[in-house]
């Protein structure tokens, strides 16, 4: 009888100790916010373009995590972002939702400076402060900071902003994918002949 009591007490004590330990650590090591949102946000291209229907990349990340928003609504990120998101969230890879736009080549905004009237509207629209200028002064885009979100194109009253594809340079040039070869071994090259021989 006493052995049973001892066993029960020991188990109770253990339970108590671990309970306290877990309770303490859950307070001590509490993580602020949702770390998954940060991870998803870091995979998004941060153009803040709003093509996904959300007012920026982080809101999209939040809605992916919190309300099961589809992961294929980011045209600037393209297929590689979808793959990365699918990998992170452990869901199926789906093709890009064409409703929200198509994956396009990377572009940067370019202001035709002769036509710029210095209205500062594009400066206010730029989410990353990549446009330099002041009221009644010519504006220009800092190319290295431009994310190509094209949010500045619409507000321009004189339509002097172009989205130009980024010209490849020697440093940015990439090796292309090799052409796929013949994926057959020599004896399989003419399957028809082999079949005929069998017949």
């Amino acid at each position: 009888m006493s052995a049973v009591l001892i066993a029960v007490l020991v188990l109770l004590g253990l339970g108590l100790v671990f309970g306290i330990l877990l309770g303490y650590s859950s307070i001590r090591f509490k993580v602020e916010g949702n770390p998954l949102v940060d991870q998803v946000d870091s995979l998004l291209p941060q153009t803040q373009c709003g093509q996904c229907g959300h007012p920026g990349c982080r809101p999209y990340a939040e809605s992916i995590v919190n309300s099961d928003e589809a992961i294929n609504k980011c045209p600037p990120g393209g297929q590689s972002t979808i793959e990365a998101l699918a990998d992170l969230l452990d869901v199926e890879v789906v093709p890009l939702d064409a409703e929200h736009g198509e994956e396009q080549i990377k572009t940067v905004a370019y202001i035709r400076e002769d036509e710029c009237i210095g209205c500062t509207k594009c400066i206010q629209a730029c989410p990353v402060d990549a446009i330099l200028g002041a009221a009644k002064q010519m504006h220009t885009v800092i190319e290295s900071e431009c994310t190509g979100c094209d949010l500045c194109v619409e507000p321009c009253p004189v339509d002097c902003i172009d989205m130009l594809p980024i010209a490849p340079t020697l440093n940015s040039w990439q090796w292309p994918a090799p052409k796929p070869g013949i994926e057959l071994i020599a004896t399989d090259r003419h399957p028809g002949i082999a079949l005929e021989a069998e017949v």
Partner: protein
Amino acid sequence: MKNTVRVHSFHGGIHPPENKKQSTGAPITMAPVPSRIVLPLQQHIGLPADPVVKVGERVLKGQLVAEAIGRISANIHASTSGVVTAIESHPVPHMSGMPADCLIIEADGNDEWIEHQGLEDYTQLPKPELIEFIRQAGVAGMGGAGFPTDVKLHLGDDHIVNTLIINAAECEPYITADDMLMRERAEQILGGIEIIAHLLKPLHIMVGIEDNKPQAIRALHAALDNSTLNLDIVITPTKYPSGGEKQLIKLLTGIEVPSGKIPADVGIVCQNIGTTTAIFKAVTYGEPLISRIVTVTGQAARHKQNYEVRIGTRFADLLDHSDVDREQMYRLIVGGPMMGITVEDEQIPVIKTTNCVIAGSVQEMPPQPPAQACIRCGMCEQVCPAELLPQQLHWFAKGREFDKARNHNLFDCIECGACSYICPSNIPLVQYYRFAKAEIRKEDAEQRKSDHARIRFEARLERLERAKVEKEERRKQRAADAARAQAAKKDAALTPKPASTANAESSEPDLKQLKSNAAIARTKLRQAEKALANAKDKGQEGVDTLQATVIQLQEKSDKAEQAYQQAQNAPAKAPVAAPASSLKDLKNNAAIARTKLKKAEKQLADAEASGEGDISALKAQVVTLQERTAKATEVYENAESGKDNSAPAIALDTSGLEADIVAMQGKVDKAETAWKTAVESGSPAADKMAAGVAKLKDKLTALQDELAAIKNASIATAAPVIDTCELEADIVAMQAKVDKGEAAWKTALESGSPAADKMAAGVTKLKDKLTALQDELAAAKSSAIATAAPVIDTSELEADIASMQAKVDKGEAAWKTAVESGSPAADKMAVGVNKLKDKLKALQDELTAITTKSDAKQDETQMQSEALDMKALKQQVSIMRTKLKKAEKQLAELSEDEKESALASELIAEIDQLKLRHGTAKTTYDTAEAELIAAAAQEGIDLKQLKIDAALARAAVTKAERALTKAEDDGKQTLEEELLAIRAQAEKLNATLERFSE
């Protein structure tokens, strides 16, 4: 020859046909000076160099033409003398085949050196300066990547360098440049090694060399015998790619450089043998890196040999010199057959890293057979010198599983091509790795960029948030400041006011206030006039409104000015020259003076009769009193007959009275002392004297009473005048404030500022205040009406009404805009507008009351006096019209019940009257105008036409002026002449018009 150190081994490797013998038959010869030199600004990783010469400039051999930017960058020098003809895009040796910026020099054939000098004793120079000297010479790694050498020489600063390895392996087939260099210039090589050793101070120096170059080894050993340098020449078995940096380190030391590290991390520095000669030449002779040894070989080349080629020589020149058979040439390869690149364009120049040019025939360099399926033989794994899993990496790259490829150490691949060479299925494995690497790098770059964008985006949000908070704080601060200022103003306004009303002496601050009011009114008037002139010039609409405003302002300004002048002229003590003092008072004064005279005379008679008292004094008093009485009567009579001479009289009277009182006081005192002495001496006259004293005392009290009465009376008459002046000034100031406030509020509304509501409230408050002031004025005036002549007031009242009308209109317009823009301040404004309307009505009622009183005679006099003033007439007519309309509207607004009431009938009566007056005013105006037109017609001018012509002329002047400012210099003179002509005509027309309109 035996090795003094143990040679290790590395994994894998292949043994392709060497094909080196072809190009070692002939010694190194100097390639001829080409006609054109093409120097790419970027010949390596890192940043491109920045050109320091201009197009058209003549440069000498060895002259710096482009300067390094940043740490990983190298200087570029002209390799022969000539003229810089262009800095433009030109094909360069790059895998992409893309053109890049190049500096192009047309050689003049003189090959003229710039002045240059080596260092006499480099060991005397501090190391950083020596390294800088080498950097200035533009020395870059001549083995493969062209990495700037000075960067590697600095490695001794933060790494402990135990071993210096000189790479002379030259493992790739076909290439013999280093071999021939060692055979012919072994001393230069050793000299270069000495300099490097001096800089890095290694414990051990090794030269790694493959055993397929026995002559080179012999030459090195021979040179070493004459040198003090302590180094090991290590002969390694021939195996590709023993020349790879990490592979050679493994071979010579057995140490494996960890993944992701550089050799310096394990205490080893590698230098190519070609680089050592470049360092030697730079330090000893001061020659920058402008030429290198290039092997020209391949079956299509008839002279297969090594040349010392100027950097920037185009392949076409080199191939011509080697007598290459273009028919036979199938592929042109830069570098070796394993790692080199195929180029299509012969215009591509030799750069610092070009060690070999192969003009291969079809047999030599057959096209790549089509890739077949991987049979998973595993041979690639066996030959991989980096001990990777090429097959696995191939699958990952093909399946775009780049993360997995990265985890399988893709980046340790040196792209030597051994796996592709050995693959039985001819799979271009290296291409797959290059592709995968590029994709991973791109992803990383995008990740970096998106992180950067996120940081910037968040910074922006933070900035906007901060700006918002700051703006809010500033707004609050401003509001608080304004409230404080207002409170202070209120206090200031409250304190001096009672003082000024209670004490006429303290009119000093009022003077200032009045002066500033007058100034404000003047400024406003000038502005309005300018605006009017502008509007007239441009023929804009609303000139009428502006004109009305100007007239109003003119009145206001005049009033303010007048008030100021009055206040200034008024003597400080005398309670203002009372021009409005009534006849009654004058009459009173005269009567009092008369009574006084009688009293004094009686007193004199008494004194004479009793023979006591100061008879002579009494006589003198009587005389003065007589004079005064005469004066007072005269003043009264003058005033009655219309002459306004009363002011000095009253002033005199009170001062005279005061003097009287003093004199009387003196008399009383005297009489009292006399009486007292009489009582003491027991004189019988004491009783009589007592009676005299009592009489005198009575007189004194009477005089004092009189003075008080006069003073009261004069204050009573003067006070309202002061008040109205002050009030008017206040109203003018307040009006200015209201206008300013309204303007500010309107701009705020337009810009959508959130402060608009508050401003609207402020404007309403100001308006309320204005209304209060106007009420006060009206009250003061109505009280003044009792004493002052009503004639003055009606015109003033009318002006007030006109301005009030303008205010009401303005308020209504503001209210309408507020309603349209959906501002919440609209309700408040409506209340304000209603108040203003009430005010207006009150003013109109007042006016009607006054006018009805003095209608009959006033109308006539008014018409007569103003018949000549067309402008005033016009204004009169418009005022009448407005009043009439207002009254009619009021009547229409009355409900059915009210129509029966007395108010309605009153209104109807008023309307009738107004109609009548309007009719009279209109007829007067019409007649005046008709007279003018007739006068004009007499001179043969149509006034209407004249007006139109004048307006047109004014417009033409404006247009011409604008054209003149825009015009270029050439057309200016004619335009100026035109403008002068037009202006003259316009002035003429205007003058005529003015003559008739005034």
